[in-house]
């Protein structure tokens, strides 16, 4: 059979005879890698552009149309030592990029306008106390108006739009007081300029927009980056399927290009990337990523197979079906939809703050106007004072208080191996006080491991490892890995579903099922030894040995669970696996609350029960069966090895084999929430000081400018503290 790879699905035609492809690259972390990749790819003839984006860990390539096969770039990158895979930019990601650019453009306009208006305002402030002529002052005010009005009209768009959306749906958000403040300040300044007044607020209005846009841009950029990382992760999973293009010809194609009705080949040791039905072949499949069950399930023609299943022994031909046809998947999807609907719209801290803030600010301004009128002041003076109150209270620092902390904390989490899927995940994570773990693939590692290697003579184990290299069976892979085997034995033959055998120095070696190696008696004696694992036998002539293989616990699972308890977080295990397996894991980790054989619906019921008693549950899971409970929990996290659906549902994703990133995410989140609250208090505290001055009519534009920038800078500096927690960990 001839195998080809076909990535034409990802190639974009830019016109003018140029083709373009984007590749996600793993392991690009420094300037050296960047130069190496760009030089290596540019050396291919006909490549017109090879540019690495270090922020997003991607390479953009352009070449003369039709002259090259994109497979060549991937091969070249793997020669250079980088794993790469093409990807399609999700439409959501493209929107985020466009939005990010728009905000940066607004920020640029606002910042330049602020600088220029300031340049005109400072002469006025100093001229007011020295010898400036009223005509000169008016001239400067008019110039300020010419700069500030169009700049505010352009740069204020994000706020005007959002405020309008909120108002037209009958709500009030933080942008409503911002817009009212800016519009009134500019309007009053124009009127005051007509009347040759001493003070105008063009600088305050435009500076306010600048600071707020900084916060908006940081917030947006964090979301954009999260989305880019998620896109890379999806691409680097390199999900391809081996599709039959003729009766005997197969081609490796990206899953995105597979359609229902296609026939794909599933070799032993491969993970199925599609949903479908077996039409030919017999094997056993490991569905632990879907159900949490670690025992293998037989597969034969007619058996439904789901994306994420691991084919264990024989080759299978699978007919691809549309995703929703499977009964199991349909059930999970239904539960997931319900959970997502029921997920009560969480009120972000910023929204809660603005809900209190806006009415208070507007009431204060209105009362100020009323008070001054009642005290005998003219309407004009009273309104000017009222607007000064609005300007001084405009939530400049408040707008920065939360996004700056989030950006810094998300960056720190990223460094320790945790990626954010949801913008408000940090706040919710900080509130979690109860953690529910799934067992299979979450507390345990997704790969198998040999647990009794020490009981076997090392030369025998090394032989077993070399023999194992000739098989694709996951158990064999675990044996080869444990023995550090590198050179396969010559003439090894695999008997599907049984094991591998080879003849070395005239003696037959066998590795496989106990029955295949004639070790049933030995296996029967040791059956009770390890209820969780499965037994493999190795024989050399009449010498027989048993290896016990199972999914090992993550290296630091016990330590992390102890650390969680020290932080006052209760721990529970809910698993779809057998009771014996879950009991053993719970005992080893010192977890007293555990349940086995739990269905997805049971998991949700348990979470709802905890929720209704006021507990904020964090769910940690990887299987497809966990997806509904990941959505139902207050906050959720998945390992990077998780099923697609779960990873997309979880609020956070952690990298690597240890559980430590999960713990550090909690620490960073708690620190971040503390700083967010502190920042809000700082911003409010500044208002408490400045508002009485404004009500008293003593605020000049100079005081407003100083107060506004001072409080904003204070809040930004405070946010930088979110980078450090007491026990920082690295995931590498």
């Amino acid at each position, binding site marked *: 059979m001839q195998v080809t790879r076909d990535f034409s699905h990802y190639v974009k035609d830019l016109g003018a005879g140029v083709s373009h492809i984007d590749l996600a690259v793993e392991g690009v972390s420094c*300037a050296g890698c960047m130069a190496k990749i760009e030089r290596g790819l540019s050396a291919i003839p006909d490549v017109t552009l090879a540019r*690495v984006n270090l*922020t997003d860990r991607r390479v953009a390539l352009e070449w003369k149309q039709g002259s090259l096969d994109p497979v060549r770039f991937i091969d070249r990158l793997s020669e250079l030592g980088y794993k790469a895979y093409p990807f399609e930019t999700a439409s959501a990601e493209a929107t985020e990029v466009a939005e990010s650019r728009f905000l940066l453009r607004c920020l640029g306009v606002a910042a330049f306008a602020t600088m220029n208006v300031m340049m005109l305002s400072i002469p006025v402030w100093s001229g007011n106390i020295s010898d400036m002529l009223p005509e000169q002052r008016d001239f400067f005010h008019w110039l300020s108006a010419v700069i500030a009005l169009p700049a505010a009209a352009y740069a204020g768009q994000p706020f005007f739009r959002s405020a309008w959306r909120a108002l037209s749906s009958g709500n009030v958000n933080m942008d409503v007081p911002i817009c009212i403040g800016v519009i009134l300040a500019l309007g009053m300044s124009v009127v005051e300029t007509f009347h040759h007044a001493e003070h105008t607020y063009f600088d305050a209005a435009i500076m306010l927009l600048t600071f707020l846009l900084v916060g908006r841009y940081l917030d947006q950029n964090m979301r954009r980056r999260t989305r880019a990382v998620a896109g890379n992760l999806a691409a680097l999973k390199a999900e391809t399927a081996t599709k039959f293009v003729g009766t005997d010809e197969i081609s490796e194609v990206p899953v995105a290009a597979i359609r229902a009705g296609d026939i794909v080949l599933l070799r032993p040791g491969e993970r199925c990337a599609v949903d479908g039905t077996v039409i030919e072949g017999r094997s056993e499949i490991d569905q632990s990523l879907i159900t949490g069950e670690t025992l293998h399930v037989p597969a034969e023609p007619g058996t439904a197979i789901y994306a994420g299943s691991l084919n264990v022994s024989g080759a299978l031909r699978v007919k691809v079906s549309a995703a929703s046809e499977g009964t199991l998947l349909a059930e999970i999807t239904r539960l997931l939809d319900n959970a997502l609907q029921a997920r009560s719209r969480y009120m972000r801290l910023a929204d809660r703050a603005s809900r209190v803030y806006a009415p208070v600010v507007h009431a204060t301004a209105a009362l100020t106007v009323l008070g001054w009128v009642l005290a005998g002041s003219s309407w004009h003076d009273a309104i000017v004072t009222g607007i000064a109150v609005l300007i001084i209270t405009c939530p400049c620092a408040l707008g920065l208080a939360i996004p700056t902390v989030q950006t810094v904390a998300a960056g720190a989490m990223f460094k320790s191996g945790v990626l954010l899927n949801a913008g408000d995940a940090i706040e919710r994570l900080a509130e979690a006080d109860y953690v529910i773990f799934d067992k299979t693939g979450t507390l345990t590692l997704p790969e198998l491991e040999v647990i009794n290697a020490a009981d076997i003579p090392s030369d025998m184990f090394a032989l077993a490892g070399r023999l194992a290299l000739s098989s694709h069976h996951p158990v064999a892979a675990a044996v080869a890995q444990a023995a550090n085997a590198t050179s396969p034995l010559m003439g090894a033959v695999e008997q599907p579903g049984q094991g591998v055998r080879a003849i070395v120095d005239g003696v037959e070696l066998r590795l496989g099922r106990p029955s295949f190696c004639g070790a049933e008696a030995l296996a029967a004696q040791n059956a009770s030894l390890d209820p969780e694992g499965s037994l493999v036998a190795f024989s050399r002539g009449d010498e027989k040995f048993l290896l016990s293989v199972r999914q090992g616990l993550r290296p630091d699972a016990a330590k992390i669970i102890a650390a969680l308890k020290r932080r006052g977080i209760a721990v529970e295990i809910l698993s779809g696996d057998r009771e014996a397996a879950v009991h053993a894991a719970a005992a080893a980790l010192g977890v007293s609350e555990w349940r086995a054989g739990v269905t997805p619906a049971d998991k949700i019921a348990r979470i709802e029960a905890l929720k209704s008693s006021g507990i904020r549950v964090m769910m940690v899971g990887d299987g497809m069966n966990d997806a509904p409970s990941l959505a139902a929990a207050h906050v959720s996290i998945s390992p990077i090895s998780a099923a697609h659906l779960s990873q997309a549902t979880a609020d956070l994703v952690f990298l690597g084999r240890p559980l430590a990133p999960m713990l550090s995410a909690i620490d960073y989140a708690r620190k971040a929430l503390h700083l967010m609250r502190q920042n809000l208090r700082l911003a409010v505290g500044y208002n408490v000081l400045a508002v009485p001055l404004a009500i008293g009519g003593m605020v000049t534009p100079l005081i407003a400018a100083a107060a506004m920038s001072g409080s904003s800078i204070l809040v930004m500096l405070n946010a930088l503290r979110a980078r450090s927690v007491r026990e920082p960990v690295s995931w590498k």
Partner: protein
Amino acid sequence: MEVMIILVPLALALGLAGLLAFLWSLKSGQYDDLEGAAWRAIADDDEPQPSARAER
């Protein structure tokens, strides 16, 4: 104070030039990869890099 007739338009023109330069740099993709740009500045460029032009 006659000097203002020259200085004020000059200052505004410079401000506008700065803004236009920023908008141009944004449009030509120079803000797309800030991390990479930081490293490119100190990379060895003894060897010619045919790729060293902006993405779009």
